[in-house]
């Protein structure tokens, strides 16, 4: 599908050759899209900074959503890693699968670039406290 990428490109910039010029999208943009799609997913209580520091998953604030997402390119396809905190008591495999298909679908819909993989890393669980 996407054969437009050249080796000479600066790393980390997605390109699609088009008839009328070039469109470049930076990985941080893809990450933001993926982050927004992810936090709208049911059962996802937040993004978490990738990698654990001292074994503690850190819930990211709203404006830092893209920090819980890693975007890279493998063989001309997007590979997206998302790091999330999931609600305790949900079936985590089902939430993760929904997350994969939603992120894939949203990024493909918004960018028109095929997504090769969406990898979900559940970094922690959040337990709800009934308020009222």
């Amino acid at each position, binding site marked *: 599908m996407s054969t437009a990428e050249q080796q000479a490109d600066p790393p980390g910039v997605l390109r699609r050759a088009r008839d009328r010029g070039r469109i470049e999208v930076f990985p941080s943009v893809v990450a933001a899209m993926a982050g927004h799609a992810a*936090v*709208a*997913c*049911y*059962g*996802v*209580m*937040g993004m978490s900074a990738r990698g654990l520091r001292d074994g503690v998953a850190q819930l990211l604030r709203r404006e830092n959503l893209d920090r819980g997402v890693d975007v890279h390119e493998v063989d001309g396809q997007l590979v997206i890693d998302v790091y999330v905190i999931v*609600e305790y*008591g*949900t*079936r985590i495999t*089902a*939430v993760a*699968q*929904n997350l*994969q*298909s*939603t992120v*894939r*679908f*949203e990024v493909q819909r918004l960018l028109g670039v095929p997504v090769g*993989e969406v990898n979900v890393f559940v970094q922690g669980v959040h337990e*709800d406290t*009934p308020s*009222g």
Partner: protein
Amino acid sequence: MKTRPVAEQKPQARPRLVDGQLFKLALLGSLSWLTANQEEVNRLNVFPVPDGDTGTNMLLTLQSAVEDIRESDAKEISKIAALAAHGSLMGARGNSGVILSQIFRGFAKHVQGKAELTPAELADAFEEAANAAYRAVIKPTEGTILTVAREAGKAAKAAAANPDAGVDTVVRAAARAAKTATDNTPTQLAILHEAGVVDAGGFGLQVIFEGFLKTVEESDPAAVPARPAGSGKALPAQRSLELPEEGWGYCTEFLIEGRGMSVEEIRDNIAGMGNSALVVGDEELIRVHVHTNEPAKVLAYASGVGTLARTKVDDMSKQHRVILDDTVPAEPQGNGKLAVADAQRKRPNGVGLVAVVAGGGLTEIFKGLGVDAVVEGGQTMNPSTNDMLKAVESIPYDEVLLLPNNANVILAAQQVPDLTEKKLYLLGTRTVPQGIAAVVAFNPNRDAKANQLAMAEAANQVQTIEVTHAVRDTTANGVKVKKGDVIALINDKLKHSGSDYGDVVSLALKDIKPESYELVTVYRGDGAKDKDLKVLTEAIGRDFPGLEVEVQDGGQRHYPFILSVE
């Protein structure tokens, strides 16, 4: 959506309290009603990912929720609700399934320790269930199942404020509010408005409330053991593990298709033949679930009323032993069942074939062509990635070609390569004829890569025409379709509609330049009528004398006819 006419209220029959057994029956009512509406829910599914499986996912989740409560005699609602919450959690599938499991979880938490609920307590529990569902998402999308759950809870609460309110009043208010909220979803979520549908998950929840209401409205006071006031403590609930004297009998389930059937009459008759009878549906389609010692008698009676479908008879003593043995129940049946071909000699190239197929005839065809394992699935019953993975792992080859044979399955199939140690080659076959053409092109003496290319090439050369009925009014690709029309899809895209199989198929064949093809293979689906087949084949013979027509039994669901043109 048919709404049930509200009968004149009969105060003497109105349940005043919900105990475990009424709640259980009501959930079984929800299950039946959702089963009957599953396809419709699937069709509506456009958000968040338009993969047409919301109904199936919700149904599998609800099935898992009621699996453990079916045989429970527990009188306490807390026990039944806890079983339902656990079951739905373990079986949750898809987004709406996960939300549904949270709804059950919230309900169960709220009724903890309670034996029965007053109408007001039931309303509180509905509301708390919705609140719990909202707590598991940070950015709730309105115009979805969540909105419907909240509105139903709110309405139940308002109805319960009336001191005369019965259980039925509360549930009716919830069901009605669920319908109103579902009808409103297109005003809240733009993509629904664009597609001209209501939210699939919301509609699914509406159906669940409606099924619940049916049971509550029809519940016979005798079936709800009303505890006389002041009779003190009830006897301890019988441990459900004791074997009743007459044995467990057979859990018998089937559908009756017919015309002008009387649900009431059939219910009375079937109720006389066993217990836990559940008979729901309308004049044309009735779903029956009954526990009986004489399943043959029930089936004989029912086959006199109409045509039987999806008959399932389970020996409950056996099921019970399975539970006692603490055996983990198998994955839900009916979806992604595995049929591994008999052991055969290994191929010289060491490459195996796995195909996704729906329909007994098609399974035979694919196996006859040498496919090593067939995963059952297809339109609206998408097998999970895991189902496909199991099939891939089950065959004695380290290199495997996987054929999804359906556009909706490709996404799940793409996940399989990451999960297996085997080298997997995915073919992008989107239809059954493409799959068959690809398998025919397989050469056991060439390596996997060469086969993948040759098979993809072969798949591209076949034209697929799928013929079915429209389930709702819609416009797609500029084709206007009315509910009930015969429609034809060419290579997965809607192209023609009309009232006659012959006309529609002729139009479709004209589109694909019939002069460059020689053979039309008609795969006859489950439920396709002889007279429709005759109309269709005669039309091809009349309009395209140059094409040879061959009919094969496909047994696929949803599409009465799939045509392969090559």
